[in-house]
């Protein structure tokens, strides 16, 4: 059956945009910006078409495209999306225009900047849609290149070091992952995610790998575990899990804020996506085997990053750590789901809740973090790049609308009910508490510390007496308000009617949780 190649088209849209921008050059900056924005909006519209056409109750992947690519190696070009993939596509399509708008004032090498952003978007799209490890990995690695240059060339004073650290860190993780997958490929002669998942569920995957490798020094269990750790490292660095996270605060704070938005809003989901799409189906027994240490890593991620955020004085570093904290809840939810894979019917409801919670939290964190960084970008623009916690005070008096809207984004980040942040956290805690009671209880501390540092930001920046310097700080312009309306509106919409997302992803969440059953 020949259908329209929706997903390849979607991935190609930003690539075409990038080529157009490069050909155009930076002579007309205004035009370049608008063209870049137009392409990203076009991608958003395409994603919304997919959202509309998506069948929410069908099993498996939709909009699939399957073509032989390197037949001799059994490599295929296979793309498709399920509810999770679709949700991530939508998130990326929303976050990238936000990142562009927040980069509007960039003056140097404008066409290159926006071309790299579009290229990055294409790579992220590719990662979220690929169903064959081969080109999935190409997209995964390729995404590092634009991100590296975006951080290095347009970043702050220490951006070269931060970019290099970011690159090497993720590269090391990726190489470890590549090794693991080559080992798997040698044994199975396939890179296809679905086939590999079937093999893993029937219990053939690891024995095959172990016998192919035939390492005498290791027991089969240890070999399997080693393969798992290779893959795990790649994703753990990307999410990141503490202690694999030290590239993140530097990268987020040194990158131009528009890029930080894309890094935190869309790219940080690639790691979680990998956990869900690749690690869970393939390495369930291994994860179960080391679940306790994994849970502690998740708890440490949640709690330590919240505390670390409390100690920061740079707004971007604060929310960099806050990002780690929010994704830590997702890790907690994922590990909780792995805990009981037996046929305990009483716990399936909890697993469904946690899995849905993880999905929703991924989306909501992307939206909220992107918006919060957007506000920081607008603050930087107004104050000549200042973003220290102690640089301000009493701003609410002169920029009441800015304060109000940023307050909404901050309270969404805090998890206030009625806004989007609450739903994911509620579902994750509801699902995880009965599954992994103690880890969840300790993680709840993160909710408290988050409140402390977010209210601290509000207090330091917007409350108190107004400094002489800021008396003439301009409030949001009409244009800025209008561009903010969709993001803020979405926060309310998802907080009050989460069925908008859950209706689409629930079926995928059920499938993912149930597929874990059959080890």
């Amino acid at each position, binding site marked *: 059956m020949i259908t329209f190649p929706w997903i390849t088209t979607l991935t190609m849209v930003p690539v075409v945009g990038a080529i157009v921008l*490069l050909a155009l050059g930076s002579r007309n900056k205004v035009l370049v910006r608008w063209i870049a924005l137009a392409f990203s909006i076009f991608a958003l519209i395409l994603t919304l078409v997919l959202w509309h056409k998506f069948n929410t109750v069908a099993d498996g992947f939709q909009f699939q495209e399957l*073509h*032989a*690519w390197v037949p001799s190696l059994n490599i295929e*070009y296979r793309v498709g999306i399920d509810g999770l993939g679709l949700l991530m596509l939508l998130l990326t399509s929303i976050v990238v225009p936000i990142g562009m708008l927040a980069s509007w004032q960039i003056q140097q090498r404008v066409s290159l900047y926006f*071309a790299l952003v579009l*290229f990055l978007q294409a790579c992220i799209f590719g990662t979220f849609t690929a169903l064959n490890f081969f080109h999935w990995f190409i997209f995964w690695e390729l995404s590092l290149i634009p991100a590296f*240059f975006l951080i290095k060339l347009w970043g702050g004073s220490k951006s070269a070091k931060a970019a290099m650290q970011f690159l090497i860190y993720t590269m090391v993780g990726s190489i470890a992952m590549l090794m693991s997958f080559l080992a798997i490929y040698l044994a199975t002669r396939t890179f296809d995610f679905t086939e590999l998942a079937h093999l893993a569920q029937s219990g053939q995957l690891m024995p095959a790998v172990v016998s192919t490798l035939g390492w005498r020094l290791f027991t089969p269990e240890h070999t399997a575990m080693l393969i798992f750790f290779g893959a795990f490292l790649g994703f753990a660095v990307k999410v990141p899990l*503490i*202690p694999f*996270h*030290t590239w993140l*605060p530097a990268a987020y704070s040194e990158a131009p804020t528009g890029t930080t938005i894309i890094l935190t809003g869309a790219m940080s989901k690639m790691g979680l996506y990998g956990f869900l799409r690749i690690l869970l189906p393939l390495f369930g027994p291994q994860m179960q085997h080391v679940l306790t240490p994994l849970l502690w890593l998740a708890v440490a991620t949640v709690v*330590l*990053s919240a*505390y*670390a955020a*409390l*100690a*920061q004085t740079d707004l971007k570093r604060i929310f960099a750590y806050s990002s780690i904290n929010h994704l830590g809840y997702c890790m907690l939810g994922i590990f909780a789901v792995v805990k009981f894979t037996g046929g305990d019917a009483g716990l399936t*409801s*909890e*697993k*469904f*809740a946690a899995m849905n*919670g993880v999905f929703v939290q991924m989306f909501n964190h992307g939206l909220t973090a992107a918006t919060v960084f957007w506000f920081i970008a607008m603050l930087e623009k107004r104050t000549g790049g200042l973003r220290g916690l102690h640089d301000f005070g*009493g701003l*609410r*008096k002169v920029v009441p609308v800015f304060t109000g809207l940023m307050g909404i984004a901050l309270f969404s980040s805090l998890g*206030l*009910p*009625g806004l989007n942040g*609450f*739903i994911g956290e509620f579902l994750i*805690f*509801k699902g*995880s*508490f*009965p599954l992994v009671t103690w880890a*969840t209880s300790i993680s*709840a*501390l993160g*909710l*408290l*510390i988050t*409140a*402390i540092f977010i*209210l601290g930001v509000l*207090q330091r920046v*917007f*409350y*108190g*007496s*107004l400094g002489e310097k800021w008396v003439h700080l301009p409030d949001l312009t009409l244009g800025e308000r209008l561009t903010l309306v969709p993001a803020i509106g979405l926060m309310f919409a998802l907080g009050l009617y*989460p*069925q908008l997302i*859950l*209706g689409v992803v*629930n079926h995928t969440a*059920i499938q993912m949780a149930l597929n874990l059953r059959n080890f």
Partner: protein
Amino acid sequence: MNWIVRNLWLVPALPILAAGISALAKRKSRVLAASLAIGSMAISFLLSVCAFAHVLLLRSSGQPTLQFFNFRWFQFGNEWLSLGWVLDPLTAVMLVMVTFVGLLIFIYSVGYMAHDDNFMRFFCFLALFAGAMLGVIISNSLLLLFMCWEIVGLTSYLLIGFWYSNPKAAAAGKKAFIVTRIGDIPFFLGIAWLYAQSGTLLFYNNGAGFLEHSAISHLLAQTTATGICVATGIAILIFCGAVGKSGQFPLHVWLPDAMEGPTPVSALIHAATMVAAGVFLVARVYPLMSAHTGIAAALTTSTALQAVTWIGSITALLGAVIAVAQFDIKRILAYSTISQLGYMMMGLGVGGVSVGMFHLITHAFFKSLLFLGAGSVIHGCSGEQDIRHMGGLGKLMPITFVTYAVGMLALCGFPFFFSGFWSKDEILHAAHTWNISQAPYYMGAFAALLTAFYMSRQVFYVFAGSSRTTEAGAELAHGLAAPDAAGHHASDHDAAGHHAPGTPHESPSVMTIPLMILAAFALLLGFLGTPAWPWFQSFLDGTPAPVNFGAFSSGGMIPVMLSSSVIVLLGLGIGWWFYGRKPIKSADAPDNLGRLSPSIFSALGAALYFDAFYGATFVKLTTVLARVSDWLDRWVWNGAVQTVTYTIFGFAHLDNFLDRHVVNSGFDEGCNSVSRGGKLLSMLQAGRVQGYLKIVAGALIVFTILLLWKARI
């Protein structure tokens, strides 16, 4: 289903809608904001009265008085999460109280906030608060209740920090939010646990709600690994939320600081409604709180209710003790509120829903009356809040004085004619007959003595004698005032300081009329719940309420009543002995009670150093942990990474060294080839990123073409 039940959501939705509209409107549209807030509140009040009437009607016709409406919210897995609202006597009573008191305070605020720049924002927040609070009341789901509960906390934060340029107000708002959130975290976990155990968060759902029999007995039958009954564990976690919200010991420290907010906010949120939400929560989940497995069901009290009772009695006593030594007119009332909330908790623990709730309702009226009266005093004194600088206001502000006296006597529980007497007496009576311990009764009785004492102290200071407010004196004494009182002047002065300073004056009628209405209720409400005609109790419990004057003489009622009367009169007498006998002449004179033992008095004045203690422990711990996390990040995690990196670089250098000096063979040739390659590469690495990117783009195009070409095969 009845119209009012189906449309009960309108009661909270209207104020929220009003808040939404005024949030979007222009900042200067004062009339719009005030009229929207007051109008929506008035309609909500009328709807609440309809709901109340509907419950009364059902009751008189003998039908079940509990009706609910549930709806689906979202789906996860194979189940739907449902929310809903419920109309029962508890809801009805609370709805009428909150909308009525709220309406009066809204009207009062028009006068009080008239000259504030952010008048509009104030009404926007107030309306949002009212909506969320009404949402808490009508929720038929613990989750919906929790959501509204958090939004109530948000509005409390916003309104305490309303005068945000004052750093103390900003700090107080933050403190309130965080301290209540400390209680909310266990509450949140309790919700998760409850959901896992009972499979629903609905209170009532035709037998499937978790407050209904089958779920409760299911919860009772389970025990955790540590041997605690699941029902008890969940109940105590939920109670933690109530402790935070209702300012119970040990989380009471935020409530006095919350007085930094405008006085109408203190009256509405931090006296009458929000702080009572914790009490309401315990009352709402009472079937869970009181569930126990004892064989003699009538004789034992569940562990959770014992916890409620003890926390309540400690709080009642603690608040009263600290209130004795305060000098800020609003702080005295704040500690008094803490103490009275403790009474309510105690009442719930020892006597049941109706006992605690009756005091909640009467307290809401007389305490908001007292706060509004205090606001009128502050307004009249141009922002002064220190009672040492008042005096003689009885003559200058007669309406405020009389209504304040009514509120004060109601709070003290002056025998027979004031509502506080009946509601407090009922709690003490229930405590007297409690089967676990007599200690709560004695603690409560002693707190009642102190209540009468500190209120008479306050009234003598403020209204008796001659005025001690001279502008010079006020300015001078302000530096000498207790540290906790400093800073208030600036804040409330902003709102009220439009009059010529120095001469206290009566407030405008938009402020005094609400006072008079509240005073009338503070007097009359008590008669709805006397032992002779316990209408209120029977309404909540669903039992008939015959008029029976014989009830006074049964069950040890008379001795308790007499002794509490004596206690109140004694407290008032001691207050008069210390402060009323001789008029207080100078604002700088030491406190008459303080002279007895200055050290104890100053310890009480500093609220028994709770803040200092928490500052030295929990706050310190948090700061230290934050530093440790940061340090771990910079040195341990990053250090490990750096070590690995340097090790690798070290090997590279070592390798390089060996290559140069040890492995000599083929060096020249290698050198040449390297230099050739280097030239080639240096063409690429000209440092021109556009160059790089053109290559990347070119490669990409090739790649894409290849891809499409292969794909076609």
